[in-house]
């Protein structure tokens, strides 16, 4: 058990959250999104000039992040909202027509050989 250095007994990826109330107060207490269109890597982009004159600050923050396409995980990371909360807020924005979402077909079907070869070439070039 001495493999873990002192001060690191508590893994970093393991932290307590004492209450659900705080993050989910932004969603009116909902813990599930109104729809399930969003995978972690789904790309979300704000509909140009689709923003309403007044939206809640957290929605405005998300819309500003999505001025260019951004994955759901990145929206969560950059906004600081937990993933679940982010999904609920994004679903609200989608319901209201303020964002578009694109989930890659590659989530359902493996890319074909030509695509995989192109990906390999690009990775080697990195």
């Amino acid at each position: 058990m001495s493999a873990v250095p002192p001060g690191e007994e508590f893994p970093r990826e393991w932290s307590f959250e004492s209450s659900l109330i705080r993050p989910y107060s932004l969603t009116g207490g909902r813990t599930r999104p109104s729809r399930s269109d969003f995978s972690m890597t789904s790309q979300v982009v704000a509909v140009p000039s689709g923003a309403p004159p007044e939206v809640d600050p957290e929605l405005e923050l998300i819309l500003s992040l999505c001025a260019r396409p951004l994955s759901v995980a990145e929206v969560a990371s950059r906004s600081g909202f937990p993933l679940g909360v982010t999904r609920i807020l994004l679903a609200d924005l989608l319901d209201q027509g303020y964002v578009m979402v694109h989930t890659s077909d590659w989530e359902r079907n493996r890319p074909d050989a030509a695509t995989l070869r192109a990906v390999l070439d690009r990775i080697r070039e990195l």
Partner: protein
Amino acid sequence: MDGALVVMEAEGAGPVPDTLKIVVAGGFGAGKTTLVSALSEVEALHTEEVMTSESVGVDDLEGVEGKTTTTVALDFGRITLDESTVVYLFGTPGQRRFSFMWEELVEGALGAVVLADTRRLADSFDAIDFFESRGVPFVVAVNCFDGHRTHRADDVRVALDLEERVPLLLCDARDRESVKEVVVELVSLVLRLELSGA
């Protein structure tokens, strides 16, 4: 061109890329975040998911000492291959109790990297079993971050009871070129599967 990527144009916002997801698993301290950072174009991103009794079986909350929720941290990186293709590398939360997160991460994943730490090889078993059971293509990368390649790849393969068809390579998770090799190995494996119709 055959490999032309379909790009959805978002009016005024540029092309919306298609995405590939690669999952990086391994025990705590194996170097997952280091590996992700080595290849990511931005410093490893960080997000969190709140775990509730709803998202896992109630039994899984055993040991959480009366707390109603915990936060699971997720580190990930982004590699833009071109304007139409982005690869995301997601490090899995190490603990078995967070396996609900693994389920979501492997959904739609191209494949996975099991990052093994030779000091704690047993920590890799969970991940290997999980990917095998889900039919997720994976490679095993042995992290030799201490610079001492004290283990030969063959020995590690035997210790992990790894089938011959699973690629295994030594790597340095801090080194960009080395991590590139790991990802190339994985994508090559997926390509072989595609070509063989598997």
